[in-house]
């Protein structure tokens, strides 16, 4: 794995760790006001909450190759994608707290984060963000820029019509477009084998005459490599790619999910293979960082995330009648 520079590995580690710690804090924040009786609408962070613990390699492994001008669209489970695309963490957290200082002034919420400064967006409708990324790729091509657009989706979304229409368009117009399929084995309670007629979605590239890549077992290093190739190809005008990565869903589909549909053994097995730990031990083993340096890095990450939470918690709520604003610009 000498092919990955220290700088890139540290960057990936930082984003993955930041995402993980962000989500772990969110797990707790979300439960505030929801105990002892769970009520989805209660507390400072109400509504559905889809966390991404375990899925960090999918996001960090490709975003390390992206720049600010590249576009990312994400689905309902967007925090790790947003963090890897360097969305403003304070305003993102404030949005999730429904605050006036949030990215959407509290109107969007956790599934609807928009940070045009880094060209990030997400949404709650499965597969709907794919054509948006195609449109961004089309814009890049029209402008003659070497920008790339990446759409993150779950494996469940690869069976939606929008997937097919988008891939055909992107391939037809040879756009700098990449779809990253985060295969966490589940679409809510439905296992991939009950939703997808092929074992792996990389084979679907054949339907579009494009490149398909498969990353096994949530491997952050391999995700880095195939993404590098796909992004370079896209920048050079060589067209779109599908990247599927087998990843891990440590938590329920949403917080509060009773998870009666999955084996109790599944999560401990996955947690034992924590991809963040894999990167960390690699950094240390290869002499790229010491334990102490890693601790210092962690401390920085934690304080950055904590600051974002402080900002969110201390920010004012919108005024009720703000609900009528921002309809039209």
């Amino acid at each position: 794995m000498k092919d990955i520079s220290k700088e890139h590995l540290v960057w990936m580690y930082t984003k993955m760790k930041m995402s993980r710690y962000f989500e772990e804090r969110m797990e707790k924040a979300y439960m505030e006001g929801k105990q002892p009786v769970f009520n989805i609408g209660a507390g400072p962070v109400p509504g559905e909450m889809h966390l991404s613990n375990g899925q960090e390699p999918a996001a960090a492994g490709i975003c390390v190759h992206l720049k600010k001008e590249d576009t990312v669209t994400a689905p309902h489970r967007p925090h790790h994608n947003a963090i890897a695309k360097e969305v403003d963490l304070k305003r993102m957290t404030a949005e999730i707290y429904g605050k006036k200082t949030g990215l959407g002034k509290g109107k969007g919420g956790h599934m609807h984060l928009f940070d045009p400064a880094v060209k990030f967006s997400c949404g709650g409708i499965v597969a709907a963000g794919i054509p948006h990324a195609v449109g961004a790729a089309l814009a890049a091509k029209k402008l003659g820029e070497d920008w790339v657009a990446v759409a993150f989706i779950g494996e469940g979304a690869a069976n939606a019509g929008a997937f097919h229409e988008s891939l055909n368009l992107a391939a037809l117009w040879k756009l700098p477009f990449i779809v990253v399929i985060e295969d966490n084995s589940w679409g809510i309670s439905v296992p991939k084998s009950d939703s997808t007629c092929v074992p792996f979605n990389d084979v679907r590239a054949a339907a579009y005459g494009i490149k398909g890549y498969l990353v096994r077992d949530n491997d952050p290093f391999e995700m880095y490599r195939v993404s590098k190739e796909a992004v370079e190809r896209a920048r050079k005008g060589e067209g779109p790619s599908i990247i599927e990565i087998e990843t891990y869903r440590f938590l329920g589909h949403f917080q509060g999910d009773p998870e009666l549909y999955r084996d109790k053994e599944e999560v401990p097995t996955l947690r034992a293979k924590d991809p963040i730990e894999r990167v960390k031990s690699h950094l240390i083993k290869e002499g790229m960082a010491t334990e102490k340096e890693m601790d210092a890095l962690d401390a920085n990450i934690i304080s950055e995330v904590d600051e974002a939470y402080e900002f969110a918690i201390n920010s004012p709520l919108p005024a009720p009648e703000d609900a009528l604003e921002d309809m039209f610009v």
Partner: protein
Amino acid sequence: MTDTKVQKLTGSKAMSLAIEQEMLKDDKIFVMGEDVGKYGGIFGSTTGLMDKFGPDRIMDTPISETGFIGAAIGAAAEGFRPIVELMFVDFHGVVMDQIYNHMAKITYMSGGNVKMPIVLMTGVGGGYSDAAQHSQTLYASFGHLPGMKVVAPTFPHDLKGMMTAAIRDDNPVVFMLHKTLQGLGWMDQIPASLGPVPEGDYIVPLNKAQVIKEGTDITIVAAQMMTVAAMNAVAGLEKAGINAEIIDLRSIKPIDKETIFKSVAKTKKLLIVDEDYLSYGYTAEVAALVASEAFYSLEAPIGRLAIPDVPIPYSSVLEKYVIPDANNIIAKAKEIMES
């Protein structure tokens, strides 16, 4: 109502019991949808059915609404009676073509030669910060289009009786279940979501509103959570000296205008409350029916309360502002009484 034994059930249990009882009688009925199997439906509409009927009749699907709702149409044409779930009504936009251009029109286009006995059940409603793409009711988006019966029951009794009627109907029925009225363990627990439900099978007609509180001063027409809000407003209204008659719409299409006209003939005043968007919603349709067909009953301007033509915002403080509640109803009723 053919049965006398009554138990207290939540909305979701009432619905799933209706499905169970009908499925036991007719093996042409099957259920398709996302997470309707082991999960029992995200809003509990198929609770326990997987254990009873197995995966051939309770079918989990991929996230392919056009595919599986379209397949329901094809299966219905072959004599099956599919019940399909569109998890949230907010997702209708990925499958509306199958619903309104095919499911709703095939019977008519075929000159009545092809039947479409499909129940499309779908979760509606907000109030728990699920934001702009998961909180709508969209009653009118379905009510506007011909060929579907569209119902939105409030109470467990009606959820069961209307589900039974919907399953037995040879035409497409859009069955809107309000999440907050399902009595789910993880949502706000409200009294209206638990109620007496006869054990045996019975039907509640798909085209009849119901006067759930009699009154003399003003007619309030509402559906689902707005019916609940209207009931919650009763005490406050009485304090203001207003004796309201409350009509639970139950059927979005067709609207039971006779029940409304009869009430307005008595009260002379009308307030319509909707959890859907204001423009082109049922506040418009009910007002128009009265203003065109019962005009001379009216003695005051019609009142309309609904989502003020903005998407449902996420932040609780904003969401509360846009969804009508008992206080809004009281204020608006007073305004009408004084106009």
